[in-house]
């Protein structure tokens, strides 16, 4: 009975360790490489404002959204620019024109934010 009990306990410890390690690795990975399509559009713009000046040193402190988008477009032309321009217009209408906050999420905007976070420009 004793060897079988030890074996079970050891197996459980190993299983526990494996589960928690996977969970910790997953959380760390998510933090480092956030998946696209997680935040809403307003949150993504807030994130963009924080991350862009660090990754794009050519951007002056007085940059506008359109200047930022133009710069990213030059560096990452493969992003979905039709969607990104629509999202920008919706955000501008909300921000400067007293419009409704843009609802939902934008996959392309999340991709853009992720690319900037990873510094892959």
């Amino acid at each position: 009975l004793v060897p079988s009990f030890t074996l079970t306990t050891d197996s459980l410890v190993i299983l526990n360790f494996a589960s928690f390690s996977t969970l910790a690795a997953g959380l760390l990975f998510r933090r480092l490489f956030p998946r696209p399509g997680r935040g809403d559009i307003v949150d993504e713009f807030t994130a963009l404002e924080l991350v862009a000046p660090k990754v794009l040193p050519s951007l002056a402190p007085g940059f506008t959204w359109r200047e930022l988008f133009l710069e990213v477009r030059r560096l990452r032309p493969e992003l979905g620019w039709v969607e990104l321009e629509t999202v920008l217009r919706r955000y501008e209408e909300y921000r400067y024109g007293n419009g409704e906050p843009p609802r939902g999420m934008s996959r392309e905007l999340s991709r853009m934010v992720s690319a900037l976070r990873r510094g892959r420009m």
Partner: protein
Amino acid sequence: VIGLGASIRESVVGEVGKVVVGRERETELMLAALLAKGHVLLEGAPGVSKTLLAKAFSKCVGLDFRRVQFTPDMLPLDILGGFVFNMKTREFDFRKGAVFTNVLLADEVNRAPPKVQSALLESMQELQVTIEGHTEKIPEPFIVLATQNPLEYQGVYPLPEGQLDRFMIKVDLGYPDPRTEAEIIRRNLTVMDLADVRQVVSASDLKTAFDGVASVQVSDDLIAYVAEIGEKTRKDQRIGLGASPRALVQLVQAARAKAYLDGRRYVIPDDIKVLLEPVLVHRIRVARSASLKEDDLSASNLLAKIVEGVKPPR
């Protein structure tokens, strides 16, 4: 109504482009000034199509147009009008001068003496003429398109700062690039006539557009952004004369017109940034001490540096 702005812009730029090549940006600025109820100073060397541009523009917006060639021997009476004795009624009648129109082309405005210039500029601001206690209203809309040649120094009276401040927008008409110039030469081989330019904006569309511009929103933080830029131009040691409150008011008005012409019902920071140069640079003077230290220091460079450091609302 908002879509009308973009359609007006497209048709006016297209129509003016029939006779004036490569001046799309300048045409848009003139249109923005008209809708923002401002005046335009066109500056450029002789032969860069200042007068043609002004004539073509007024023709396609369908407004009453008059041209006055300014000369050193002019009198305020020639522009404003005055009292003339009527032999029949044996009374003095007010005869209206050239200023009583919608679009006044003041050609070579810096050739007229200061008395004439100030008479014109007063009427630009007040939209009325007062002579011997008699006041006459100038019909609206009223826009002065004044031209001046920066290369002449003999026999000219440069506009002082206070008078330059009355112009909402200054358009610098530089020489065209070789490709555009080739196109100008090619078009001039055949008959290129102002008669080809049609009226493309009706009076009712113009009225709707004025109402549309008045309804364009400007957020409070965008107004604070403009005020901060203005303050920085006045506090910068390298600038002798910064932007006046009138300049900032006109900047916001011009930005509203631009937003309307772009098909938007709100102003964005980019509208302000695009218009900073045409609206502010002619009102800013670089301090003499600063220009002695740095050779290539200009109002334009200084303004660009200031704006780079001011964070717009995001």
